[in-house]
């Protein structure tokens, strides 16, 4: 069976049978009723919803990381980060003191 030939024939069949453009009775009335009853699109509300969702995601991540850091035992050779940071920040002052001596 020639698949490409079959495909072309079926596409031709689809072209020969375009869908109807019939509109159901009183369809425009139905649409207008929907428009009248639909709440107006509030962009601020959309923003607020998106922000609340992202706040929820951030809170979940923060909780997860908090629990993770509490439950993970510190490695034996780990350096206290706060002390290392302080030492780095004050390195210049320490050097100055050393020279003064």
């Amino acid at each position, binding site marked *: 069976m020639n*698949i490409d030939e079959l495909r072309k024939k079926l*596409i031709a069949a689809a072209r020969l049978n375009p869908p109807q*453009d019939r509109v159901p009775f009183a369809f425009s009335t139905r649409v207008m009723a929907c428009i009248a009853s639909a709440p107006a699109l509030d962009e601020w509300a959309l923003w607020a919803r998106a922000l609340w969702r992202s706040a929820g995601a951030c809170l979940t991540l923060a909780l997860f990381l908090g629990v993770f850091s509490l439950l993970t035992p510190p490695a034996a050779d780990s350096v206290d980060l706060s002390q290392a940071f302080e030492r780095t920040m004050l390195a210049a002052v320490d050097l100055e003191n050393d020279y003064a001596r």
Partner: protein
Amino acid sequence: MRAMERTEAELIAAALKGDAASFEPLVEKYSPRVFATARRYARRESEVEDIVQEVWLKAYQKLSSFRGDAPFEHWLMRLAVRTCYDFLRSHQRNRETTFSELTEPEEDWLERFVRQPDSASEHASAAKQLIERLMEQLSPPARLIITLLEIEDRSVKEISRLTGWSVPLVKVRAFRARAEMRKLLAKIAKDKYL
């Protein structure tokens, strides 16, 4: 023609100012086109009506984004095609993943095609049924592309404007869609004749 365009612009301007009733003539004028488009992607009439209603609701809500530099119909058809694509994607799980048994007329038509391709007419209702069932099996992007490119005979640029996909993406999806269709047809042929 010009008076008609002015009227349309006036209707849109009035609707934007809050006069919702001015929108109704636009719904009446363009609903046939939107229905014809929706019927290409949904078979059940209730689904078609839901799609068209959604198109009009979106059109009303997003009317302020219509800049008026292109005809309203083009803007509306873009919205219609994208709504139809969303419909296909949301109903993706419901589509049959395997080709159920062919009906007797479909089998007869295929038999005729195998024996003598020219004798199987594309005017036959069996051919129409077969292509409809085949289209329902395609993935949403493949179905959209085959419909726009091959059945409606639109250009790649036009499809890019309608779908919001880039031109290279349309080309890639067209290539994949044809391959997907060929694969489906090959499966039918294999099941039936091998």
